[in-house]
């Protein structure tokens, strides 16, 4: 059996190239793969498209990626939080493109990609700005927007524990977008707090089957949302 463990951070993220689309987990701070994001920053990639729920907090994580000029396009649901000031500054300066997607639609578009579907009809956004230019359809008397799949070249996710096959479990609300992003990318990179031996995880409780995981990097526990790039 091939172990999916990456011994170093560089090994885990090294294949990410300029211009790649990255799905990055997290909602607020829980579930953000901060170490992996730092790894991508250190690679000095350019022109990345980042798909994530929030537009970064302070100067760390996604905010650091944005601040260091790695990101040309952001797809997210909630860009205008007070703590996302780094994003706002670059957006106002015309240095970054933004696509706002309703949160449930964001999750569902990624799931659709992961499930091999071509699109779905959602009542979310009907008649709003966010449906402008999108096809609408009426089914059984109700209007829907046709939304298309959203797929990443890579997913960067955070989990609690993994076994050697990449079977994952999560912790509390740090689960959030991570399982769906694991499904929706060509190459899924996980940072985990801990790796455990085969058979240590009950197969009934696995949230993300290893089928969806390409490699993982073990970080140990760390305090989330702290600046580490000093």
């Amino acid at each position, binding site marked *: 059996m091939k172990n999916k463990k990456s011994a170093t951070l560089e090994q885990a993220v090294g294949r990410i190239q300029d211009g790649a689309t990255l799905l990055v987990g997290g909602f607020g701070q829980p579930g953000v793969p901060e170490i992996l994001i730092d790894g991508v920053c250190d690679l000095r990639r350019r022109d990345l498209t980042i798909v994530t729920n929030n537009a970064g907090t302070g100067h760390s994580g996604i905010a650091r990626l944005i601040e260091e000029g790695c990101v040309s396009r952001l797809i997210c649901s909630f860009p205008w939080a007070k703590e996302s000031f780094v994003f706002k500054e670059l957006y106002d300066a015309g240095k970054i493109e933004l696509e706002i997607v309703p949160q449930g639609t964001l999750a569902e578009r990624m799931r659709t*990609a992961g499930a091999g579907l071509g699109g779905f009809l959602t009542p979310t956004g009907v008649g709003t700005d966010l449906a402008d230019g999108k096809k609408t359809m009426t089914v059984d008397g109700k209007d829907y927007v046709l939304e298309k799949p959203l797929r990443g070249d890579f997913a960067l996710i955070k989990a609690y524990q993994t076994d050697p096959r990449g079977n994952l479990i999560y912790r509390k609300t740090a689960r959030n977008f991570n399982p769906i992003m694991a*499904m929706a990318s060509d190459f899924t990179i996980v940072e985990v707090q801990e790796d455990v031996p085969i058979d240590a995880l009950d197969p009934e409780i*696995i949230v993300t089957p*290893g089928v969806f995981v390409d490699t993982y990097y073990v970080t140990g526990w760390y305090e989330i949302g702290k600046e580490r790039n000093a």
Partner: protein
Amino acid sequence: MSEQTNLLTRQQIAARAAQDMEDGWLVNLGIGMPTMIPAFIPKDRDVMFHSENGLIGMGPPPAEGEADQDLISAGKELVTMISGGSYVHHTDSFAIARGGRLDCAVLGAFQVAVNGDLCNWRLPNQTSGSVGGAMDIAAGSKRVFAMMSHTARDGAAKIVAERTYPLTAMQVVTKIYTDMAVISVTPDGLILNEVAPGLTADEVQAVTDAPLNMDDVGTINVAA
């Protein structure tokens, strides 16, 4: 037919198909002959089996006294789970199947056409068919291998220029394993890769309703 000694047995077909299951693959097996494949996977290869009823990492049948009534394969047989497997519900199981996570599906077939069209869910004269997961898996797997007898019981060819049976999925089959041959399905047509020991390429062509490229034909190794 039983005195026809040059045809492979079902075990021999399964053994031959097993040789093409690559290390690290996730594979779905259709009911019938394909379920014989796991026993023949070379020991040095890590091949995981997906069963669409929600089982990733299907293992062999349980030992005496270890059967669990809640643990079955999609073929309704009692099975086990290997180390590092997981259970998922049906929607996730089919997200895996349709979402391109299956490296290979090995499925039985009534008919395979030169263009890779697969027909395996309903006979033309049946008013009703049991589709099960056949269409989802055939449409979604990265590769679809067909495993079948080379001809129908009445001698009719099952590998054909154009399908006449009800379609399961369009242009999906890339390899065919039969009791006579191994055939690749390519955009340029069918390539006869190997024939069963004692058979000639011409004998295989004679019962195949589509032209076979016979430039480089080997013999199936049945020693395994």
